[in-house]
């Protein structure tokens, strides 16, 4: 009932682990894939060289949302090889998130990830807290087009572009992805945000600003998915505040074929993927549908 094909990948269910959650090592991702029941997992964003990321505090928690700025820490792609290789026996597709400071760095890491066995590449054009990478690319139609085109020309596996809502017009960025032959768009990454503690009288995060994720991101992200789906034909993966099956259904109705789940791992545990799937199923049954396909884009 929940199996779906997204950008050429056959997924057993439409829930994917979002990048940056539990992805420091293969062991964490394996826990999500096996215990959690995710239909696919996205690695933490990987770069050329090891990167420590920002100092703590890297996270500020609210009732159902977070502001975080980890700063894209990772081991560098050479070290990450053994982490990815641990996931082969799970039979869950692994999407490798990659970022770079320069288009050639995106290409180098993406090529390596394909070689290490990733099922798809997710270009990080969304992350707001790590200097001239991530949203630095995703905020420009021209740079978005160039990164996607360069990576597409060098890898055979599907390429997703993860976009930021911190732009004037996300539809024009999505169109640039489509023109550059991206296989799917992931919308959206965390929105720039900050928290100041009124007693410390300082920003809480060491990086001062961070990215907002969780429930309060959902209305913004659903709007982005809806606007993109109206104008673009490639597959869309919704991301932002999916905690329940009902949240996921909103994205499907807006035109997304799958959803990514990140922050909800904190609030509903690693098994959130299984829980969301059950809830989607019970919605479909209660509404008289027999497969997920039938509701994609119904609200458009």
């Amino acid at each position, binding site marked *: 009932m929940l199996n779906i094909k997204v950008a050429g990948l056959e997924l057993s269910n439409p829930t994917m682990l979002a990048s940056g959650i539990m992805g*420091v090592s293969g062991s964490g991702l394996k*826990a999500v894939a096996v215990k959690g029941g995710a239909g696919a997992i996205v690695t933490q964003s990987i770069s050329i060289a090891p990167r420590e990321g920002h100092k703590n505090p*890297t996270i500020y928690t609210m009732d159902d949302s977070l502001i975080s700025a980890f700063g894209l820490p990772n081991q560098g792609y050479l070290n990450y090889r053994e982490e990815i290789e641990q996931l082969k026996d799970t039979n869950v597709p692994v999407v490798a998130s990659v970022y770079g400071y320069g288009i050639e760095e995106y290409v180098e890491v993406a090529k390596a990830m394909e070689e290490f066995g990733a099922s798809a590449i997710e270009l990080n054009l969304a992350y707001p807290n790590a200097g001239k990478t991530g949203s630095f690319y995703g905020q420009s139609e021209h740079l978005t087009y160039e990164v996607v085109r360069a990576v597409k020309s060098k890898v055979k596996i599907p390429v997703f572009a993860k976009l930021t809502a911190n732009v004037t017009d996300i539809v024009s960025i999505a169109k640039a992805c489509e023109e550059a032959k991206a296989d799917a768009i992931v919308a959206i990454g965390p929105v720039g945000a900050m928290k100041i503690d009124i007693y*410390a009288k300082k920003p*809480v995060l060491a990086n001062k600003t961070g990215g907002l994720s969780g429930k309060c991101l959902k209305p913004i992200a659903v709007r982005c998915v809806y606007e993109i789906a109206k104008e673009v034909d490639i597959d869309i993966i919704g991301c932002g505040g999916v905690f329940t099956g009902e949240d996921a259904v909103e994205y499907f109705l807006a035109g997304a074929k799958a959803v990514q789940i990140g922050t909800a791992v*904190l609030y509903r545990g690693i098994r959130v993927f299984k829980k969301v799937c059950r809830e989607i199923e019970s919605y479909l049954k209660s509404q008289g549908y027999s497969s997920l396909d039938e509701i994609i884009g119904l609200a458009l």
Partner: protein
Amino acid sequence: MIAKLHVTKIREIIKETRRIKTFILDMKIKAQPGQFAMVWLPDVDEKPMALSYIDGYAGITVLKLGDFTKKLHEAKVGDIVGIRAPLGRGFKLRDEDKKILIVGGGIGVAPLAPLAEKAVEEGKEVTAIIGAVTKSELLFVNRFEKVGAKVYITTDDGTAGIKGFTTDAMRMLLEKETFDACYICGPEIMMVKALELARAKKIPSQVSLHRYFKCGIGICGACVLDGCGYRVCKEGPTFWDFEIEKCSEFGSYWRNAAGVKVYFKKK
């Protein structure tokens, strides 16, 4: 519920040894022994610290080691700190255990003192082995003695108690006595050895691990243990012997802020 940031003041500072200070906070935290706090020093950093006082005002006990702890040691009463607590899973005292052994090395004694206090309160007979490099660095011996625990002391240099490691004292003790459960916290290599000794006598044991934390609440993945997939900040920091046996990295390596493996130096 996920513990939120609570900004509070330092209420009292106790100099425990030359390199260890306790900071009593102006807040109470309902916690189990072995649970921890993420401690934020504005403009410096945020690090995990075991709660060393949980009855009344909460406290943390800190060894001066790196930049963060050095800055914390410079703090004065009334200074502001941010606290996220209680986090993680504390030690488990089981009803059926009447006689327990506590083994603590160095700053690892910090979460074990409230454990001893709670165990005695529950009517258990407590024996403790407390170790340090030298006499003046021994931590909380008075707290164990005050609640009536039988205390054995070890120092690396022999300035107090038995000359040697906690595991040397443990080996000698287990030759003549047995226990229903054992609780161990200290340098990881010490914990590996202590766990072996307890296992040889079939004594169920818990250890408390230290790893590099970022979020402290189980989503970033920085502290996931290889082999078992447990998050030290969430399923831990305390683990039973049968749990830690599944964690292939225990006693071998930890991961730094980038996630790169750093191997322990074997003594």
